[in-house]
């Protein structure tokens, strides 16, 4: 128990510190790297609460794919982020206000549940998982049965996102030399080689 608690505080502290550094770091590439550190530690926190599937998916999707593309963009685009950051102080009060409002509302919800009148459904809502099912299996069983409707619509939404990305960015450029593998493979000796009998002194 002590080990788990210690580990929790270590991971949580690193997560928060890294998250802070994401916005505080001067170099955008450092920001992305801190972001990755934050993701990774969040995954560790998932492991601590026994949600190992979510932890791995978090690392695979966010660290392994999303953040790589982030990094790509940040490295390729030569944006001067210090310039962008000049307005920070100006927006700070508004940002702080929004933050405070959100915190108050979250407290309201949590406090409301803690002290306010609960409807009978609320008490029944968080169904504890039976401990003999690993959570990967449990997730799969819910996702593909009870929540199949949402799962499929989510698939359609992603399809729309994909079509959108292609529609808005793919352009057919003129004059690009493309490799046609089929044409290359279909080439025969007859197409490619021509034997010409040249008489001496006459040229082709």
């Amino acid at each position, binding site marked *: 128990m002590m080990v788990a608690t210690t580990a929790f505080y270590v991971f949580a502290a690193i997560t928060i510190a890294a998250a802070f550094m994401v916005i505080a770091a001067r170099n955008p590439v450092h920001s992305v790297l801190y972001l990755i550190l934050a993701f990774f530690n969040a995954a560790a926190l998932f492991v601590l609460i026994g949600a190992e599937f979510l932890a791995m998916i978090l690392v695979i999707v966010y660290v392994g794919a999303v953040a790589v593309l982030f990094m790509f963009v940040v490295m390729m685009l030569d944006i001067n982020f210090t310039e962008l950051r000049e307005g920070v102080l100006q927006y700070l009060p508004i940002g702080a206000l929004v933050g405070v409002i959100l915190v108050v509302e979250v407290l*309201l919800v949590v406090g409301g*549940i803690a002290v306010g*009148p609960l*409807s009978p*459904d609320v008490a029944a*809502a968080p169904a504890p998982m039976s401990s003999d099912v690993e959570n990967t299996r449990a997730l799969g069983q819910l996702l593909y*049965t009870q929540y199949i*409707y949402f799962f499929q619509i989510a698939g359609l939404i992603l399809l729309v996102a994909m079509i959108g990305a292609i529609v*808005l960015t793919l352009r057919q450029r003129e004059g690009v030399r493309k490799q046609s593998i089929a044409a290359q493979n279909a080439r025969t000796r007859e197409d490619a080689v021509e034997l010409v009998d040249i008489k001496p002194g006459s040229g082709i």
Partner: protein
Amino acid sequence: MMTTMPDLSPLYAELFLAGAALVLLMLGVFRGEQSARSISGFAVIALIATAGLVLAGGGETVTTFGGSFISDQFAVYMKVVSLLGAAMILVISGPYMQAEKMDRFEYPVLILLATLGMCLMISANDLIALYMGLELQSLALYVIAAFKRNSQRSTEAGLKYFVLGALSSGMYLYGASMLYGFTGSVGFEGIAQSAAAAEVSGGVVIGLVFVAAALAFKISAVPFHMWTPDVYEGAPTPVTAFFAAAPKAAGVALVVRVMIDAFGTMGPQWQQIMIVVSILSMALGAFAAIGQTNIKRLMAYSSIGHMGYALVGLAAGTVEGITGVLVYMAIYVVMNGGVWVCILSMRRAEGMVENIDDLAGLAKNNPTMAFALAVLMFSLAGIPPMAGFFGKFYVFMAAVDAGLITLAVIGLVTSVVGAFYYIRIVKVIYMDEPAAAFDAPASGGMRVVLLGSTAFTILFVVAPSSLVEVAGKAAASLF
């Protein structure tokens, strides 16, 4: 596996639409760009067939997928309106897309997917299903708003719509999480139960406000209308026409379903919101449109105003009120189709023109279209005996019956103010110095839509009761 298949029969129509979208997508990918026209045709057929399937499905109330999906009279009515609205817009957008070299097969596919999103959200019976339908629709709309990607204005429209849309989705999710936290349920029945049970806690009200704000954004009701004029102006004209028709109908259906089904017992709370929103929308729609010179911008303000009128019926919160909303939306979608046919045929040799002044002399150059547009404008203004008058009549009657006399009076006043700018267009058409004629307009499909829309608008007076009866049944199925 030991699991049983969920009952798929209530959503055969949606399955068909999704399947059609996927098949057409594959067809387009393999056949290449030259297939755009035929795919557009197939998409229209698919939409109409889906509407037929929805009607064939009948109207008894059934839920499936553990109560996430509901099919009832109301859903059938609104789905048919949305599907036919989408089909109509797809028919009239062909010539524009070809002229602007934008006839790519993705456009009809995205319209199909957006319409699928609308059907899903009309049938949504819990907060998650609602959100997913909404996102499916919105994401497709963001993309088609920016479809003319070489145009800066179109790209700007897409981006603006996307950013503000994402903001409203965020608000919705925040509100939904509050609702879940305080009621312990994401299903509308569950929310309604716990809202009815004890005294309503503040958290539920906050959640309600957030959800209402997000939904108001989607139907561009004031004060969440800021995006509308810019997006309407910047997006390609057929896309604007689409925005003004089907998604509006679906959005209003959504607001009605959430307010009546989930918060039926909290009437006093949300009626205040709806009253304020509808007054503001009607007023802004009437006054801000006066100064517009661009007809697409004008239509944007007009649509904001019309949303205000539709919400009057919801604010009443009675069966009659909802009936009024349903009738209003059907008439609104049909009228819009005709108006957009006219706007889409405003083309001269140098390209599309969008100024109201360009309509001058339409009466000489194309008397038929001038007459049709004049009729539609009178109808939009709500002048009897056009269809638009009846739409307003039913919602205002419902408001008066529910005791909201002030609201009805404000509605009447703003209608009168709004009539000014609709009639100004009629004046430009018939009285101003003729400008150059438009190029030979209107493909066959556009003519059919214009004719149908005008005929509906004029002839509605003959038998208003048939539509009203159907709408009444649909509204009753909610209560």
